[in-house]
């Protein structure tokens, strides 16, 4: 086994537009968290950085914390504010 995590990233709405795709695959260090995944993606697509505060993250189709440890094969989705939400990630129901 290689010492990396193969992570699939799902993108929607504005992040999808910024990255120009709805799905991409990343290789991350084995210690990577969801937040590290975002940072790796934002280094390729700097426009994402300003969205960070507004984004939620999902791992394997469940809302997750940014400090969630990832595992090989995980699917990470960036979740922009939804249409009826208040736009502040901190108040979303968990």
């Amino acid at each position, binding site marked *: 086994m290689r010492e990396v995590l193969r992570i699939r990233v*799902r993108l*929607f*709405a*504005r992040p*999808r*537009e*910024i990255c120009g795709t709805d799905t991409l695959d990343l290789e991350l260090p084995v210690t990577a968290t969801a937040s590290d995944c975002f940072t790796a993606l934002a280094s390729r697509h700097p426009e994402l950085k300003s969205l960070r505060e*507004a984004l939620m993250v*999902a791992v394997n*189709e*469940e809302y997750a914390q940014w400090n969630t440890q990832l595992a090989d094969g995980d699917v990470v*989705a960036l*979740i*922009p*504010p*939804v*249409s*009826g*939400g*208040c*736009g*502040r990630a901190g108040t*979303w*129901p968990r």
Partner: protein
Amino acid sequence: MSQPGRLPRVRVTDRPISADRLARSVASPHAGAIATFEGVVRDHHGGKSVAFLAYEAYAPMAEKILQQIASEAARRWRIEAVAVHHRTGRLGIGEVSVAIAVSSAHRGEAFEALRYVIDTIKERAPIWKRETGPDGSFWIEGPDYVRAGD
């Protein structure tokens, strides 16, 4: 004729949806009340005119979330059944984006559960709305409008 028994209780689909089909699917001999809600594309938003909307969903996760919300409603109120369908893709004025039906023995529970389901969908379901009007296309992010790129 529709086949209500076979209609999934929760679905995210790019095909037209109907609260009436859901209402028939939640009917039961024990139900004295059936309440429905349809979210419909309207011709204005925030004082601006709207030509059409496009809904984009993280479909498998959205279906899980809709199922969670339905289960929460069923735990919290004494209802017979609840069904929720959400549509994706481009929708013109008057088309239904979300349809919900709740049945219960007594009407109070149906109303409260119905309200909970739609309010919680709007907070939690990973579904996004892009609005197109005379000024271009915008993502609707909670209270914010953000210009869309395509």
